[in-house]
């Protein structure tokens, strides 16, 4: 029999081995980060598109044909986005940068600089050179945007892979699952099947909910900004929709961007006020009428966990990682929770 010291030693050894393994997995993932990103995006798309494939199947269309139809739809959507939305998007970003150099913006920044230097002199704030700093910041923001669009551009080189992998996940997903289950020993067969089924339901609901929610928020924000006459409403609206993937922080970041751009655009605090009201209204509609119906409460995450997950996602996989990290963390949470619940049900723990 092992002594308590030996037991402690073994436990520590296990912890160290586990940490080394985790570090190895993390470095491997970051090494193949492009492939991981592509796989995650394809899996997300397959989960989101699965109900449409099911609907087509229920109308008598074969699974393969349903997958082909969806594959062609993704390609067409990609082409339309590349032809119409991307130039609009780039146009908006260019215009935002150009706008930074306008006399109006310079005057506004000087006004704010003056206000801070005069009114906050008692805090020892002087010679803050806000204009210089703002130009530097915008310059680096431009660099940041270009970098990440280049990151997207490199992703676009692999973009044909996403519809391709999504197609096979849609077409053969069921066979992949069956193949995996066939390798499981008899003892764990029912347990595994139940676990996969529960995971499938929960993860699908979570991801579809997030996707639909982000789309609704994006569309509502775009419409609200368009009604208010805010320039670059499409860019801000799309950003607000995407940011909504990140709970707690996403809506704030989306609103902050809209406020910043409208402030720099016409400097009217009245517009800023209306923009804030619009974003608050969108958030209210989202919280009251959209989220309770489309996003399950089952994958609730603490704000601190969300923040940590975003930092880790950003560290390993860049800006796209920040957006994908929350759904990925939601997926991991469901896997862990369902595994524990099922292990208990099957008296394995």
């Amino acid at each position: 029999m092992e002594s308590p010291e030996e037991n402690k030693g073994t436990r520590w050894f296990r912890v160290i081995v586990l940490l080394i393994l985790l570090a190895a997995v993390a470095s491997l993932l970051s090494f193949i980060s492009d492939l991981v990103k592509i796989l995650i995006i394809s899996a997300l798309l397959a989960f989101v598109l699965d109900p449409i494939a099911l609907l087509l199947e229920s109308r008598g269309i074969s699974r393969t044909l349903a997958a082909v139809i969806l594959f062609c739809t993704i390609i067409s959507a990609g082409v339309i986005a590349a032809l119409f939305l991307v130039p609009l998007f780039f146009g908006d970003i260019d215009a935002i940068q150009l706008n930074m150099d306008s006399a109006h913006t310079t005057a506004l920044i000087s006004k704010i600089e003056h206000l801070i230097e005069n009114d906050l002199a008692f805090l020892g704030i002087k010679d803050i050179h806000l204009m210089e700093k703002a130009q530097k910041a915008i310059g680096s923001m431009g660099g940041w945007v270009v970098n990440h669009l280049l990151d997207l551009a490199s992703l676009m080189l692999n973009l044909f892979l996403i519809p391709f992998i999504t197609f096979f996940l849609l077409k053969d997903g069921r066979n992949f699952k069956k193949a995996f289950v066939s390798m499981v020993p008899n003892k764990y067969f029912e347990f595994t099947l139940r676990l996969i089924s529960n995971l499938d339901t929960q993860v699908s609901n979570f991801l579809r909910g997030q996707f639909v929610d982000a789309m609704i928020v994006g569309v509502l924000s775009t419409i609200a900004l368009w009604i208010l006459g805010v320039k670059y409403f499409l860019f801000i609206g799309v950003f607000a929709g995407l940011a909504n993937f990140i709970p707690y922080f996403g809506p704030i970041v989306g609103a902050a961007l809209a406020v910043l751009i409208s402030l720099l655009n016409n400097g009217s605090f009245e517009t800023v006020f209306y923009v804030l009201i619009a974003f608050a209204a969108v958030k209210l509609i989202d919280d009251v009428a959209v989220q309770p119906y489309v996003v399950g409460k089952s994958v609730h995450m603490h704000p601190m966990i969300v923040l940590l997950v975003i930092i880790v996602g950003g560290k390993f996989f860049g800006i796209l990682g920040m957006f994908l990290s929350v759904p990925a963390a939601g997926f991991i949470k469901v896997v862990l929770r369902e595994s524990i619940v099922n292990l208990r049900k099957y008296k394995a723990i």
Partner: protein
Amino acid sequence: MNNLWGNIFKRQKREGVQDILKKIPVFEGLSNNDISHIERILHYREYKPEEIIFSQGTPGFGMYIIEDGSVSIVSEPSMEIIAELQSGDFFGELALLDDSPRSATAVAKTSCRMLCFFQSDLLDLIRRKPQIGVKILLCLARTIGERLKRANEEIHALNKRSETPV
């Protein structure tokens, strides 16, 4: 590994499976085409003698059809054998509708080849092929109804027997 490639790239077809399925009351009245759909979603498992198929008290998740071999249904903890089932027999069909714990343990008496049809596959089938799903649900309801009728008759007979003075 062969099993893995078989599952992904080949459509599994086993001799005689369709004939077995046609005789199962749950699949009664299904066309050959419908039966082919069912055959494609079944899981194929092999059990050694004395191997437990499922244990009493664990959540039920689906039904098993004996393709080849024999199975004992055992009540725990007395280990009393409730039933012995042979090739072509099926058990656990209630679990297709209900998650409640298994009421007995199923043990392979000899080497067994089993066809397994699970709740998740039935639900998936209902969404994909509602016309087949509805037929199966109807058959299931009929099977369970018949069992209920038989159980009622047995209770009635037992009551009568207990009322009769000795």
